[in-house]
C-alpha cells in the first residue's frame, strides 16, 4: 500500500483496526466489545494462569496428535488415489464430499461415538483436515509430469524409488499447500469441537467466559488462538516458499 508516495508496511492496517477497536471499546458501544488495551491486559494474566496453561497444553496435544494422523493419513490417501485409477474412482468421490461437507454437524455424533473427552477432539481434528491434505496430495501426484516418471523408469527406478525419489518431491509443493490448509481447518475444528463439547480444555474456558460475560478474557483467548493459527500457517508457508520455484513449472 502506498500513501502520498510512501510505502506503508502491511502491519499498519492492523494497527488501524486495533485503534478502531480501542476507540469503539472506550465508547462503550457494546458490552461484548471491551477496549483492546484491557483485552491485552487480561491476556497477560490469562497466560500466567495455571488452568489456562493446562487447558492450552491439552488442546495442543489433541491438535498435534490429530494433525499427525491427518498428515500421514492424508498423504497416504492422496498417493493411493494419485497412483491407482481404481482407488481414485472408489475413494475420490468420498474424499471430495468430506472435504466440502459441513463437518461441524457430525460433531454431536462423534461425541456419542467417542465420548466427551480428548479422543473426540483428536478425531475432529483429523476429520477436519485429512481430506484437504488428501486432495492436494492427489493433485500433486497426478500432475507429476509423465516424462519425469518415464525418466525414473528408464534409469531403472523400482516402485519404491519412483515413489520416494520422484513422486513425493514432485508433489511436495501441493502436499505442503494441503497441510497448510489442513492446519487452518484443524484449528477451526478444534475450536468448534471444544465449544460443542464445552467440558474439555480451552472449550470449557470459552464457555465459562462467555457464560459469565467475561469478555476481556473471552477475546484474549480468541486472540491467542488466532495467533497460534497464524503462526502455524506462516511456518508451513515458509516451507512452501522453499519448493515454490518448481511448483508451477511442471507440465
Amino acid at each position, binding site marked *: 500500500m502506498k500513501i502520498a508516495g510512501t510505502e506503508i508496511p502491511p502491519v499498519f492496517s492492523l494497527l488501524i483496526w486495533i485503534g478502531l477497536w480501542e476507540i469503539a471499546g472506550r465508547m462503550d458501544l457494546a458490552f461484548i466489545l471491551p477496549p483492546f488495551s484491557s483485552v491485552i491486559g487480561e491476556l497477560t494474566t490469562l497466560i500466567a494462569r495455571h488452568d489456562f496453561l493446562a487447558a492450552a497444553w491439552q488442546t495442543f496435544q489433541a491438535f498435534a496428535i490429530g494433525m499427525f494422523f491427518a498428515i500421514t493419513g492424508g498423504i497416504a490417501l492422496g498417493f493411493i488415489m494419485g497412483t491407482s485409477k481404481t482407488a481414485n474412482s472408489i475413494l475420490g468421490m468420498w474424499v471430495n464430499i468430506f472435504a466440502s461437507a459441513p463437518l461441524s454437524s457430525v460433531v454431536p455424533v462423534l461425541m456419542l461415538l467417542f465420548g466427551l473427552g480428548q479422543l473426540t477432539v483428536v478425531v475432529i481434528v483429523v476429520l477436519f483436515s485429512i481430506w484437504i491434505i488428501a486432495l492436494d496430495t492427489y493433485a500433486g501426484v497426478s500432475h507429476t*509430469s509423465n*516424462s*519425469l516418471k*518415464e*525418466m*525414473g*523408469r*528408464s*534409469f*531403472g*527406478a523400482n516402485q519404491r*524409488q519412483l515413489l520416494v*525419489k*520422484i513422486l513425493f*518431491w514432485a508433489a*511436495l509443493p501441493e502436499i505442503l499447500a494441503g497441510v497448510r490448509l489442513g492446519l487452518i481447518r484443524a484449528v477451526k475444528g478444534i475450536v468448534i469441537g471444544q465449544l460443542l463439547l464445552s467440558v474439555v480444555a480451552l472449550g470449557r474456558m470459552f464457555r465459562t467466559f462467555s457464560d459469565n460475560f467475561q469478555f476481556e478474557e473471552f477475546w484474549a483467548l480468541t486472540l491467542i488462538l488466532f495467533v497460534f493459527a497464524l503462526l502455524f500457517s506462516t511456518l508451513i508457508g515458509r516451507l512452501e516458499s522453499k*519448493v515454490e*520455484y*518448481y511448483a508451477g*513449472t*511442471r*507440465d
Partner: protein
Amino acid sequence: MNSAVLEEVRSPMNKAIHMPLSDENTPTNPATDIVSVRGITKYYGEDVHALENVNLDFPTGQMTTLLGPSGCGKTTLLKIIAGLLETTSGEVLVKGKAVTSPGPERAFVFQDFALLPWATVTRNVAFGLELTGVPLKQREETAKSYIDKVGLSGFEDKYPHELSGGMRQRVGLARALAVDADVLLMDEPFSAVDEQNRRKFQEDLLRLLSVEKKTVIFVTHSIEEAVYVSDQIVLLSPRPGRIHSIIRPELDRSSSPDDIRRDKVYLDTVEEIWGNIREYLD
C-alpha cells in the same frame, strides 16, 4: 543452369546410398546390430494404429535417425525400444536378446529434458547411478567428469530453473552418458533448444559421440538435423508408421561442420528427403 550441370548434380556419385529394406525373415546379426526390432505393430486403444510391422536394425556404434511427418509414430517406436511402451505385437532385440522393459544398456534423453527440478545439476547427472546404488562419492565423481564433457563446468551446483534450455538438455545428455549405456535413445533432444544453440549442440554431440563410441537412436522432425548427424536415416510414413526408406548419407565427417552443411551430398540428401515427405503433406 544447363542440363549437363544438372546431370552432374544428380549423378549417382553424389547421391546418398539407399539400403534395401530388411524384411521379417532377415536374421539379426548381434555382432553388427546392437538393437533390432522385428515386426513391431502398435495400437493405442482400438482406434489409433501407430506402427505397422516395422523391421529395423541399428548398427553398433552408429547414429540412426527416425524421421518422418508428425504422427508417424517415431517417438512411439523409440519408447518401445526403450521399454517404456508395450508393443501390440513384435519384439525388440538388444544384443540378440528380447527385451520388454528398460535396461542398463539403454539410456534415454528426453524431449522436455525431464530433470528433477529440486536437484542440482550434479545430482541430476548422477541420478541414474543413484538409482542403481552407486556410492555417493563415486557417482559424484562420475557426474563431474560428464558435466565437464558436455561443457557445463562451473554449473555443478545450479538448479535446472537457473539454466537455459540448451544447458538443461546438456544435463540430460550427461545423465544418459553417466550410466555408461551402450545405446543412447534421444527423443527430439534439440526441439526445445533455440536455433543457434541447436547447431552448436549438434556439433558438440557429434564430437562427444566420436569419443564415447555409443550407438544412438535419434528421433527428429528436422530433415537438416537428421542428415547432419546421421549415419543412417529411417524415413517413416504417416500413421500407421511404416518404413518408407532407409538412407545413408555418405558425408565426409572429417571436414568442418560448415563445410558439411555446404556439401552437395548434404544438400541433395536434404532435398531428396523433403521431396519424399512432401508427398505425405499434400
